[in-house]
């Protein structure tokens, strides 16, 4: 036991990095399909809300993240876009993070092509605009004034979908997929609380606990948390994607970290008790 404690407490952290890398790489190389994925209430609420939206309803999806959070949030965006196009909803995409503009464009175009939908009639990409809070309050008053042109430079008024929506309240649902601020809390504080529209959210693991009170207070119709939340949405949608494939690796990674924490604690308490005996 003493040798074990000594080994654990003096272990070079680079060995841990290497083992973690290998553990995560195993399911990437050969998928394990581990069981146990059950949709959480927040994700179920979000899915049910979109599922029950009548055909032709309009949904705004704001991609408020940058490439650093892509593995967590891009699968959510993809799953929500697939769901919206499957339900024949009209999608308006945009973003509040300048470093996420090309990511948003690429995701929307790829899923739109997959769903075979038409730009302007079925979906629109407004792109990015500087100002975050000012953009939200501006859209609450008049979207056409805030975004005179879309991401492709077309006058917004010339797009079929945009002729039906003039302010945020005209959307049947607004969803922010956010990695931080500006994000869900900004949309709620300066958007949905003031202009009274239905709001949903998807966020990174780091931010998920902080966003939960909004779900509890019914300021969000649903909340997708982290890659696990994205995997749950894909599960409900019955369309496995990157998130479901990633859950094997995440689960194995968690087992390893829990194991390391246990080992570290056992070694620490054993060493402390030995010191106590020696004293």
């Amino acid at each position, binding site marked *: 036991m003493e040798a074990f404690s000594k080994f654990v407490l003096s272990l070079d952290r680079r060995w841990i990095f290497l083992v973690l890398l290998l553990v995560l790489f195993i399911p990437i190389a050969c998928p394990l399909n581990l069981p146990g994925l059950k949709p959480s209430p927040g994700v179920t609420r979000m899915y049910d809300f979109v599922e029950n939206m009548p055909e032709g309803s309009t949904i705004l999806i704001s991609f408020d993240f940058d490439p650093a959070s892509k593995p967590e949030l891009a699968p959510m965006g993809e799953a929500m876009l697939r769901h919206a196009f499957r339900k024949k909803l009209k999608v308006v995409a945009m973003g509040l993070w300048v470093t996420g503009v090309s990511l948003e464009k690429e995701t929307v175009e790829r899923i739109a092509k997959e769903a075979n939908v038409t730009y302007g009639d079925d979906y629109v990409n407004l792109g990015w605009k*500087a100002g975050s809070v000012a953009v939200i309050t501006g859209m609450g008053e008049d979207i056409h004034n805030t975004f005179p042109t879309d991401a492709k430079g077309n006058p917004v008024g010339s797009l079929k979908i945009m002729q039906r929506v003039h302010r945020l309240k005209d959307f049947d649902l607004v969803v922010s997929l956010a990695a931080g601020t500006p994000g869900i809390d900004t949309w709620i504080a300066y958007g949905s609380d003031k202009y009274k529209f239905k709001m949903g959210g998807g966020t990174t693991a780091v931010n998920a606990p902080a966003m939960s009170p909004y779900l509890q207070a019914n300021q969000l119709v649903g909340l997708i948390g982290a890659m696990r939340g994205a995997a749950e949405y894909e599960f409900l949608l019955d369309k496995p994607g990157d998130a479901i494939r990633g859950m094997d690796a995440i689960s194995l990674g968690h087992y390893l970290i829990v194991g390391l924490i246990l080992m570290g604690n056992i070694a620490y308490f054993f060493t402390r008790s030995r010191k106590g005996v020696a004293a």
Partner: protein
Amino acid sequence: MMAILGVWVAVGLTLFMFSFLYKDNPFYKVGENLYVGITIGYSLVKLIFETWIPNVWRVVHPEAGVWFENHEWWLILPPLFLGSLILTRFVPKYAWLSRWTFAFVVGYGSGLAIPAVQKQAEATAHPLVTHIESFDSADKAATEAEKKATDLAASKGAGSDEAIKARIDADEYRERANAAKARKDAVSAAGARADKARAAANDARKQADEMAKKGPADSEEVHAAQKKATLAERAAIGAEMATWTAYSKSEYSVLTAWGDFTTIVLFIGVFSVLFYFFFSIEHKGPVKVFSRLGIIFLMIYFGASYGYTVMGRLSLLYGRLVILRDACYPSVGFATPVLLVAMITVLVVLHFQNKDKEENA
């Protein structure tokens, strides 16, 4: 070709950043500086082309085409003036002028943020004190709205704006009335289910007791009957709890949150944490207890946040590993193995070079 080059750059930079896990090295420095530089450069270009040119240049520059055509061109002048003042930071003598801009930004931000905080506190408390509309009042309102819509359709035509609006309102009222009816019916249905389950549980218990009295108390039949009775009692408790939940969400309940324990926990958590940071009153007596409760909530939050952070970091690592795997194939020129081997070779050489230098020193 460009796509393959893009893959090589992505793989190379990923490996450069990961190399920091070994130790600080020139590859990591290159990756770090490129990351910062590209982020700033990209943001600056985006700001110039998507904000400065359409909002300022095209409006105020006479040769850019829309001078005077836009009758609200002068609206750009106040933000342009305030924005320009920030540049006075570069001239120490006039740097104080930039404070005007910051004062405006702080004032604008506070004006928006303070009511937002107030609204958030209200929203957190809202589920606790929500008044639940009764079916009778909702039905009455819906009937009145429907009558108004019918009258307007008859007097001004069904296609008139007023009639359409009245019809939309009436439909909304009817929807609320239907929801109120569903809540009311749910209480009756849950109550009936609970009564039935309780009666079944009582019968099962009675039967088990009678069997125990008649025959040997430890026989298999008696055990089976007792087990059946226990299961029936559990089912009855579940049904009674469901009744209570339905009741608490119906018009019969004053506080909806009685049926939702988590709402109360959250309410106490939010306000105790807020109180912990409220220093206008000395923290002693009950105030101290309440603020100490705030710390406990904060610790739980940090724990949950840490757990989620681990998951988040693993997700990000997974994302990069997928990119590295996808770049292992001949179609992209074996980018991952080639770059990995090259980088390790250089690091090994650098290691021995540094070792020689240290020894010579």
